[in-house]
């Protein structure tokens, strides 16, 4: 419909994509918005060197502003990741007998840990005894407490 070669359109699209992703990815210095990538001024300065018309520059800027949040969140998904926590199901079991020993009372907590890895969900069945469960809770509560400690707060505050 545009009467231009396929190659030119492909290059055009690729160029646009590069422009938008790089702008969204980088954060220039002040003034900037933590959520949204480089500032308007920086963007305008950067594309100015390309020598397009003012009208085109304005359209590009608008395109950038409209889409940068979404682009950043998509780029965020691409980073290397470990499986991430999704949810946990649990139940209490008591083993009453087994082939090797009758008349037992052995409590256990059986859990199903749901994890996400790159859009696949895995479920792992795990078990633990009451003593270890209490230990797990204590350790993980300590972990949560760390975020509230001054050390962490200072770093989060200063690294922005």
């Amino acid at each position: 419909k545009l009467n231009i070669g396929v190659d030119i359109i492909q290059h055009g699209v690729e160029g646009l994509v590069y422009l938008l992703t790089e702008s969204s990815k980088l954060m220039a210095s002040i003034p900037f918005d933590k959520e949204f990538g480089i500032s308007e001024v920086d963007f305008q300065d950067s594309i100015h060197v390309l020598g397009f018309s003012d009208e085109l520059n304005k359209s590009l800027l608008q395109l950038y502003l409209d889409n940068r949040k979404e682009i950043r969140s998509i780029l965020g998904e691409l980073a290397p990741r470990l499986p991430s926590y999704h949810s946990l199901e649990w139940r209490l079991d008591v083993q009453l007998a087994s082939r090797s020993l009758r008349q037992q009372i052995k409590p256990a907590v059986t859990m199903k840990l749901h994890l996400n890895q790159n859009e696949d969900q895995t479920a792992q069945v795990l078990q633990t005894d009451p003593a270890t469960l209490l230990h797990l809770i204590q350790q993980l509560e300590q972990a949560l407490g760390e975020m509230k400690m001054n050390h962490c707060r200072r770093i989060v505050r200063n690294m922005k």
Partner: protein
Amino acid sequence: ILDDPDLKDIDPTVLKHCHAAAATCILEAGKQNADISAISTCLEDCKLDKERIEQFCTEYQKNKDALEILLGSIGRSPLHITDVSWRLEYQIKNNQLHKTYQPSYLVTLNVENSDSGSHPDISFSCTMEQLQDLVGKLKDAAKSLERATQM
């Protein structure tokens, strides 16, 4: 047993039979949680004299608890969690996205297999909210346990 100097005069086959018989008797008694009178009666039926029965029963009583623990640990179960380690990190940037500024936790569960003993650990990352969810659920389980033991 085959190397014991006190027993070297006895035919090894007989020794093996004795050992197997004693082991079977002990394991069955342990499995069924048999009391002393039941064991004595059983041994009487096998025509053992009183002195030997008494000796056997005394030794059995001494080791009964250890035996129960051993028998109870045999058997299949899902992967057993033995410990947990965690790491709190603050991400600054990655090659796809700069200035990410996100704290996250990396949790590793040490697990054991009932058969082979070791198993690769299970690791996963989570946000603070997700960790709070996890800890909340674990605490629910613990509370349930407490209530169950009071019933």
